[in-house]
């Protein structure tokens, strides 16, 4: 099965690469191919459509001003499940695409133990064994996988309603659907922050698809080593010495 998924992903990446383009300039590394980027933004688009069309139904007395945006209450209610289906569909493709790099490793467990230093800004460089994705990103990814499953099951129950599934199933799904949305929403704030102003240089990974080498050796040293063959800490030291202008010795 693993190979079937890999073959599917390979083909999709090739197809998208033949349509789109990814420019990788000097001093940069390829981070995400066209296929990944398209999937990511389709996921994000449908996520926000579902989120905003859901707000008016979630807390009408606070968020009912969202419903006119989607053509009124009845249309919001009709569109919301379809936005959700779009979100789950594209995220499902993304899961296939990212299954391999999202696998949990012992390095991730270690990374999680040191999360305080990273969040607190004490540690400017990620641990040397941090790979393509760090443990925080993996947690977010798997949280969304779980969230999508919860959405799908409870969403279908709410969609078809008490007529098909009974009043109790709807009442329970109602709560679980909300919980899933709340957890995901809380996580998305952190995600957007880190991929924009929180860790400058990250956003372009999902737009142009390329990141600077400095970004790579800072945040994903093991991945840097894998793609360049160079040691991330040495590369960093070299850049630091060059930068301070009065580089004591040329290496």
């Amino acid at each position: 099965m693993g190979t079937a998924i890999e073959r599917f992903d390979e083909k999709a990446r090739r197809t998208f690469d033949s349509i789109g383009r990814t420019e990788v300039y000097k001093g940069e590394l390829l981070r995400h191919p066209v296929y990944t980027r398209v999937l990511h933004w389709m996921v994000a688009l449908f996520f926000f459509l579902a989120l905003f069309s859901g707000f008016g139904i979630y807390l009408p007395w606070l968020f009912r001003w969202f419903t006119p945006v989607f053509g009124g209450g009845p249309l919001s209610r009709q569109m919301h499940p379809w936005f959700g289906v779009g979100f789950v569909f594209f995220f499902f493709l993304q899961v296939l695409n990212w299954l391999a790099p999202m696998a949990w490793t012992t390095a991730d467990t270690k990374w999680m133990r040191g999360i305080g230093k990273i969040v607190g800004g004490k540690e400017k460089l990620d641990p040397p064994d941090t790979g393509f994705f760090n443990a925080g990103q993996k947690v977010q990814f798997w949280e969304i996988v779980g969230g999508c499953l919860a959405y799908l099951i409870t969403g279908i129950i709410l969609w078809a309603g008490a007529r098909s599934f009974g009043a109790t199933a709807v009442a329970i799904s109602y709560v679980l659907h909300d919980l899933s949305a709340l957890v995901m929403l809380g996580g998305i704030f952190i995600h957007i922050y880190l991929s924009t102003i929180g860790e400058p240089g990250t956003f372009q990974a999902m737009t142009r698809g390329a990141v600077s080498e400095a970004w790579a050796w800072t945040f994903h040293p093991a991945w840097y080593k894998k793609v360049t063959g160079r040691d991330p800490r040495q590369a960093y030291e070299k850049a630091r010495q060059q930068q301070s202008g009065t580089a004591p010795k040329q290496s």
Partner: protein
Amino acid sequence: MSDRKTLQTEKISGHSGASPGFGMQRDFEVCKLVDTTTCIGCKACEVACVEWNDMPFGATTFDNTYQTMPETRWNFWNLIKFNEHQREDGTIQWLMRKDQCMHCADPGCLAACPADGAIVKYTNGIVDFNQENCIGCEFCVSGCPFNIPRFNPGTKKVYKCTLCSDRVGQGLEPACIKACPTGCLKFGSKDDMKFIANERARQLKENFGMEKAGVYDPQSIGGTHVIYVLHDATDPERYGGLPKNPTIPWSYTVWKWLFKPVLGTFALFGAVGVLLHYVAVGPRRPQPEPPEKEAANGNGD
């Protein structure tokens, strides 16, 4: 009841702020009394309901009972349910109960409804659906302890008995009441109907030997504006679809009114958290950072 009376709104689904006009006029609660001991199952009330509400004709379903159809429909709000109950001595008791919206004092449909003004409760106790505000989510169906709201897939709206709010607003009795030939249906103020119902229950006990006769007005949802006199009030379930202690699911009470806003605020803490992180700790930049920064900061790290 005065001749002309506007219906005053007491509660509105999904609404922020107060209900307009609440408490402007004195009003008393209305009530429909159904005496199951004198119902003869003639179904005049069914016809009157369909007629008055101008409902399209729908085919009936025969399933070897006298019942017109198994359940109420979006265009059939008033159904006599026929149930056979076997007594302990082996004899059969044939029960007829007029099934319709109970117009709860604490309506589960209204609690569940997320659409502003789709469900309103008037101060006289009538719970009414305003289809023009209904978004068709059907949450009311799962909020109702009596399985009453019915979805119309064509209009994608939900319908149910209005207690003839249009007639009551004009000082008339509901259509079903007007049609009832035996007087088993009565309409008036809640206090009066409760009084009559209790008197009737007392009569059944004292004169007819029905020791367990009583009135169904379930207090678990604050009482209803349709009350029944039952031969055996200790076992309302035997009449089909009358729960002994009807309740509104937890999802539409504690969860909806307390946890939703509270946890929603918690989710927003995600935004507050990252904002505070940005101002207090600052972003993590690719290393090494440009030298100008270090100079401007005054110290190198």
